[in-house]
């Protein structure tokens, strides 16, 4: 907060009013609605509903499809975050070293930020199209019996590959500016002490990038949780048999396609709790553990 502030009765309310108004109508109201609906059970025709306490939650938590989706979401998110962070860090270290063409490389690697997740999903969908997809043909000609339409692992591979492809440029931007923020004198001193570029990276550069890496880890996990919806919806649609449906995708499928409002709301509330825990964790724990 500022040391010097205005003391005015009406003006601050005037300034904050538009945001609070929009948040109340389009955030607080639906969020409250989700919590309320998660305690209701609707009949098959949506005509009447009754209050059932925690039954929806019990149903969700004990259902095999939800726990499968939860397990998939965790594995998927961790893999997407770790792989895309590793690839972008590798590229950023190299891009930071080159002198000739540095700007062109930066442009060529960062533009992917602007690609919409569903567009990435469609591009992946087309590369793996059994009729004409180059990657589909390539994998099969190498002797893998690749079939992402029926095999759950292959389908997961496709979704992960697309999600990583889409996320590399964001991570690259952050790593590159992190690397460029390391003082030249530190790098030169390290070069004098240690000839091996690889050891120099692990002992000097990587620890200095720790805050960026942690920050990106959180960003990437959030991305894999929520923003991959578009990728999944246009590539696998959660198939085969819900094997590649993340929790967010399942909320949508159950709520809008399955019209199970109570169950879907209960899933939303569970997701809210998970995200809140993640956020608190991010603010309390990570901030303290990583020294700048």
């Amino acid at each position: 907060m500022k040391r010097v502030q205005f003391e005015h009765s009406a003006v601050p309310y005037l300034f904050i009013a538009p945001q609070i108004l929009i948040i109340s109508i389009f955030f607080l109201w639906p969020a409250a609605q989700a919590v309320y609906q998660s305690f209701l059970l609707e009949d098959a025709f949506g005509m009447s509903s009754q209050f059932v306490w925690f039954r929806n939650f019990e149903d969700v938590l004990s259902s095999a499809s939800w726990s499968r989706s939860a397990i998939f979401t965790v594995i998927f998110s961790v893999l997407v975050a770790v792989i895309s962070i590793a690839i972008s860090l590798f590229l950023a270290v190299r891009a930071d070293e080159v002198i000739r063409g540095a700007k062109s490389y930066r442009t060529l690697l960062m533009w992917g930020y602007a690609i919409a997740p569903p567009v990435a999903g469609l591009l992946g969908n087309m590369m793996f199209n059994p009729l004409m997809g180059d990657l589909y043909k390539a994998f099969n000609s190498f002797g893998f019996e690749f079939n992402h339409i029926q095999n759950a692992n292959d389908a997961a591979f496709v979704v992960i590959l697309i999600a990583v492809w889409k996320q590399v440029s964001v991570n690259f931007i952050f790593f590159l500016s992190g690397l460029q923020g390391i003082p030249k004198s530190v790098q030169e001193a390290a070069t004098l002490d240690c000839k091996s570029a690889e050891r120099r990276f692990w002992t000097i550069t990587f620890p200095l990038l720790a805050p960026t890496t942690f920050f990106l880890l959180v960003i990437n996990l959030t991305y894999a949780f929520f923003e991959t919806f578009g990728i999944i919806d246009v590539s696998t649609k959660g198939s085969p048999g819900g094997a590649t449906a993340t929790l967010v995708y399942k909320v949508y499928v159950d709520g809008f396609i399955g019209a199970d409002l109570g169950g879907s709301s209960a899933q939303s509330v569970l997701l809210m709790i998970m995200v809140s825990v993640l956020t608190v964790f991010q603010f309390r724990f990570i901030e303290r553990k990583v020294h700048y």
Partner: protein
Amino acid sequence: MYQSKWRIFTNHTILILGALFMIMPVWIAFASSTHTREFIFQNGLQFWPGGHMIDNYGAILFDPSATKGRVTALEMLFNSMVLGLGFAIGKVIISMMAAYAIVYFRFKLAVPLFWVIFSTLLLPLEVRIVPSYEVVANLGMLNTYTGLILPLIASATGTFFFRQFYRSVPDELLEAARLDGAGPIRFFIDILVPLSVTMIAAIFIIMFVVGWNQYLWPLLMTTDDQLYTIVIGIKQVYNSLYEGGQIPQFPKAFALTIMATIPPVLVVVIFQRMFIKGLVETEK
């Protein structure tokens, strides 16, 4: 700094491979969008562009039947533009104002209101999608630009960016302004807004891209073709690819994909410096 020849060579090799990894899918989509559908159907995806670029893109842009609906790609591009600009403008104005109130004023409800704004970070739209849809439907806002844009603005990211920025503005400015007799509104318009121009531009660019690329919300909201954004339009075209027993219109679907990608990519590449500065400085 000393670099061995071998290191320089591997650096360039790795970066070129990385760039190819990023570009290749988009390039293949572009090259394939310039052939006839019969050709693509028989020969698969193409690496080299063909001679039907103008036919395919022209049909998509101006002929509603090519996009399998009542709207042309041109109208979809317009809708995307409205969404991107509306989202960016709304977000910048609303969050600038809210952040100003939070940072520069001492008022009773400051703390609770701050927490209300903060709570939106906990709950992305994707999670409360079903009730949000119901609220917008109750307000009669389905298939309107307002219903499309406003719920997306109800999150606090922009407010936090501006809050960070205002806190880095020296206190002396406010003291000086007050000595000169400037009131709060005067200070905001004449001093703070001009100071924030680069920040506003950076956030505007980021928000434009985010708005343009929205998917789930427009997908639920717009049941009327007339409001389809281009990202939604692609999905509809891909969904109808295998309908009707005809040869699938892959080239036109690819053309639509390319057209959805070009505007945000151009914005990001042209304003690269500003965009990277905004992204890196605000999210820390």
